């Protein structure tokens, strides 16, 4: 047991750091900072740089495009990208449907979809939640009825409504959980379908969230025709894929490296912000909240490292990853609370982007501008990916045997 990086790991860290420094599209952060809307090409610019380098999916098996990095190298990678404030890559293809396809897909499905996920050619979205099924995912009602087409091939006709579909406004493809058997137990009648978002019968409508942003959507499916060869795994076995995906999704969800960076930023702000005759950082109550946050973050970091060590010894991400989700999101939310608190009166003004030729301008310190929308936005983290209450149910059942 030791914490030291080997000389190889140090060399790797330097290589990564130099690469990010030389190739990361820094204009992205300026755009975010100025409150400008991110276009699809903006999201994809960092993706394409990494794809060209061969570093787009470090966690995938090498045969499908993974880098073969050790868990330590992957840890270094996440530390370094957070350190440089790199934007997050869209996870829907890279860490959600991609692993499902290479794990459960046919050879044809793999060669059809995986290369386009890696290149960023296809933008994916996730069709899981429905208006009537949030945390109780298995109660979903979107129906897929199988029929034989005039061409003699097998198809599904899909009808229903999905919601909270993140970035569906940009999506080329979606992965959907649909009900293919209504006569059996809820979990046993679900199938996992890949649907072309340009199919006739699909309507995407925006949902505007508390921070004013358009991230999520409603997706309506009316008589959408889907070839059977776009189903992953067996009919009515989609729940297996769904559970696999959720466990995968939860491991990255701890966001340790990004939260560490977030703590540093808040400390910088608190040092630069006056609070009476001293800096806010010298306020014992504010300081205590930061130190408690740092302690909890260290505990989370070493819990994740222990989990990674378990993964490298052959144990996949298990239900323990629910712990990482709960604690990781709690910390992410506490960071946004502290940032808003540090902003003081300047947390209140509604911040919008000011284009060229706009005579209006932003008020207050730069660090305060986005604190309120980010605070509101991040309430989602304890709700999505299986709410934190659902995660407790998972641990109770799968780990504690209750």
């Amino acid at each position, binding site marked *: *047991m*030791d*914490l*030291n*990086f*080997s000389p190889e*790991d140090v060399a790797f860290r330097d290589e990564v750091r130099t690469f990010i420094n030389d190739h990361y599209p820094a204009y992205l952060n300026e755009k975010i900072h100025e409150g400008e809307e991110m276009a699809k090409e903006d999201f994809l610019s960092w993706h394409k740089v990494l794809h060209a380098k061969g570093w787009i999916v470090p966690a995938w098996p090498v045969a499908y495009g993974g880098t073969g990095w050790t868990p*330590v190298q992957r*840890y270094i990678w996440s530390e370094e990208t957070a350190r440089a404030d790199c934007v997050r890559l869209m996870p829907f293809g890279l860490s959600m449907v991609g692993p499902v396809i290479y794990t459960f897909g046919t050879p044809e499905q793999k060669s059809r979809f995986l290369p386009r996920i890696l290149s960023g050619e296809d933008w994916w979205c996730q069709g899981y939640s429905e208006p009537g099924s949030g945390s109780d995912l298995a109660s979903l009602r979107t129906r897929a009825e199988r029929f034989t087409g005039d061409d003699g091939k097998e198809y599904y006709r899909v009808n229903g409504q999905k919601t909270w579909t993140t970035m569906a406004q940009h999506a080329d493809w979606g992965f959907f959980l649909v009900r293919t058997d209504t006569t059996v137990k809820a979990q046993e009648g679900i199938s996992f379908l890949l649907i072309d978002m340009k199919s006739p019968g699909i309507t995407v409508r925006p949902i505007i969230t508390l921070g004013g942003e358009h991230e999520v959507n409603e997706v309506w499916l009316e008589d959408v025709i889907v070839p059977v060869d776009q189903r992953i795994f067996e009919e009515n076995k989609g729940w297996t894929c769904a559970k696999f995906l959720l466990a995968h999704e939860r491991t990255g969800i701890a966001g340790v490296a990004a939260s560490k960076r977030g703590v540093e930023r808040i*400390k910088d702000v608190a040092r630069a912000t006056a609070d009476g005759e001293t800096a806010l*950082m010298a306020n014992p109550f504010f*300081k*205590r909240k*930061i*130190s*408690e946050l*740092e*302690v*909890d973050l*260290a*505990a*989370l*970091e*070493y*819990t994740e*490292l*222990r989990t990674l*060590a378990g993964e490298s*010894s052959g144990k996949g991400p298990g239900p*323990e990853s629910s*712990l990482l989700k*709960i*604690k990781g999101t709690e910390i992410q939310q506490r960071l946004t609370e502290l940032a808003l608190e540090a902003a003081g009166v300047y947390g209140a003004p509604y911040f919008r982007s000011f284009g060229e030729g706009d005579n209006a301008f932003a008020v207050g310190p730069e660090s305060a501008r986005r604190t309120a929308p980010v605070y509101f936005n991040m309430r989602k983290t304890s709700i999505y990916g299986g709410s934190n*209450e659902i995660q*407790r*149910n998972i*641990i*109770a059942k799968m*780990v*504690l*045997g*209750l």
Partner: protein
Amino acid sequence: MDFNYTEVQTMLRDTLSRYLADTYNFDTRQKAVATGKGWNPAVWQAFAEELGILGAPFSEDHGGLGGGAVENMIVMEEMGRAIVLEPYLSTVVIGGGALKAVGGAVADAHIPGIIAGTTRIALAAYEPQSRWALHDLTTTLKGGVLNGQKAVVEGAAHATHLLVTARSSGGQRDAGGVTLLLIPADLPGITRRDYLTVHGSSASEVYFENVAIGADHVLGAADAGLAIVDQVVDEATAAACAEACGVLRVMHATTLDYAKQRKQFGKAIGDFQVIQHRLVDMFMEVEQSVSITLMATLKLDTAERAAAVSMAKAKVSKGARFVGQNAVQIHGGIGITQELAVGHFFKRATLLENQFGSADHHLARYEALTM
């Protein structure tokens, strides 16, 4: 970066775990408590002779197993699982740690005795006014004469030696001017008032009245003892965190077991979601305590030692309170009796919560060190 135990470390844990499971069950422990001595000398001899664990963190040159902080962590977690009374922490981690830090002839002289079980050391550092400030000393060493009082010295009654901090120059709270002594526990002028702690171990108020101190009793350089004590108490704090992890694991497992069996309103109380989520929150506190204890243990030999230890103790202290109180709560009435083991684990957890500093003490120390 590597989070796996070596084969030798795994063997150490398994051997000790098996031994304690076989010979140190709750009833045996309570019989030792009932003697009023606060320990069982036969168990200590077995640790030395049958198991050889008293040599875990010492070099092979001294007859030890060649381990270090990780071995101490492994041993202490097992001690916690059985709420062991015997003084591994004060003798091996603290006394042995000080001797390792100083090295040289004094280490050669005393470490083999520790490994053999014949030398037992108690830390006489805290004073009635000092709370957890190791530099706040009214015990004085002037012209080779020691005077003063030490508070709640764990294991003093069965120690062969005392590890004593004394003010040899400067003011009461100066960092400089602290001298560290290792003295025989029966020097003329040393008296004790012995008592049991609330969980059944033995502790004492120790009084020094014109005790004659020789130059060979000084560990390290005169006036420069605080750095050694700081380091050793950090090592001990990490070890106490590991002990707490063992205590918490057992409390959680015991409570989980109870919740699956105890029936109310026609079903097991573990079927109620409010109990399930409480048990999950306890589980998460235990896991995070284990994680942050590992962090502190692995950073003991680095420049981040003090900050890492204070982070760990702050987290583990809160975890100990949360898991302990909820273990009792979920057991209900039976949890507040002397009858079940869980209450005794709760008592141990509560003492560990404040040993070497409360959560607040360590958060403040962490802030002073880093912010």
